[in-house]
């Protein structure tokens, strides 16, 4: 299983703060594409963090990873 965390606009679009998807050796980029199709997200400028570290699309996921979709941040 991969746990997916959603924040801000993405969370409101889905109506949930967490999703779970089956682990099947995906990369970050493949997971992004899958969600983009399923929820019609605009993920162009969304960053991804795997286990609380920013990750690139090429990174391969592992079983039990926590993947956070990070829209452009606006703290401060």
């Amino acid at each position, binding site marked *: 299983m991969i746990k997916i965390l959603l*924040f801000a606009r993405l969370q409101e679009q889905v109506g949930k703060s967490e999703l779970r998807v089956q682990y099947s050796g995906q990369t970050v980029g493949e997971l992004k594409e899958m969600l983009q199709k399923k929820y019609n997200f605009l993920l162009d400028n*969304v960053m991804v963090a795997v286990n609380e570290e920013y990750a690139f699309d090429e990174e391969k996921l592992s079983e039990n990873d926590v993947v956070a979709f990070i829209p452009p941040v606006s703290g*401060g």
Partner: protein
Amino acid sequence: MMNQLFEIVREPIEPNKVMEKVMRREAGAVTTFIGTVREFTKGKRTLKLEYDAYDKMAVKMLEKIGKEIEEKWGDVKVAITHRIGMLDILDIAVVIAVSTPHRRDAYEANEYAIERIKQIVPIWKKEFWEDGEQWIGDQLETIPYPDGKPQKEGEQND
């Protein structure tokens, strides 16, 4: 809790408490930055703000900023507290305190901290206006960052 230099909190922030974390006998200069909720941005009245965060990662990124500052400025102590939840005009959203032996460094390192917060710390702000509300940071007018890293945006204290 008092000893944590980097915190995400839900209660009002007391700037003195953050400042006291960095005061030390070797440091003659302490700078603080306090970001408050501003009423007008580009002529538009803000009623209130909501901040959300990926708490655990946000603390980790604040700590990372602290480490970057130590690498760049050496003898420096940094503490950052960011509040999340609903905030009214004038409420304090963030306090950054930096102490150094010499003042130039205290200003520079402090400004570096707020710039980095706006780049890498997973915190999001929703603005509430008279005619609507919106999560800030991914409006359509935002140019997508080209290099895969979050970029600076117009903020309430930009």
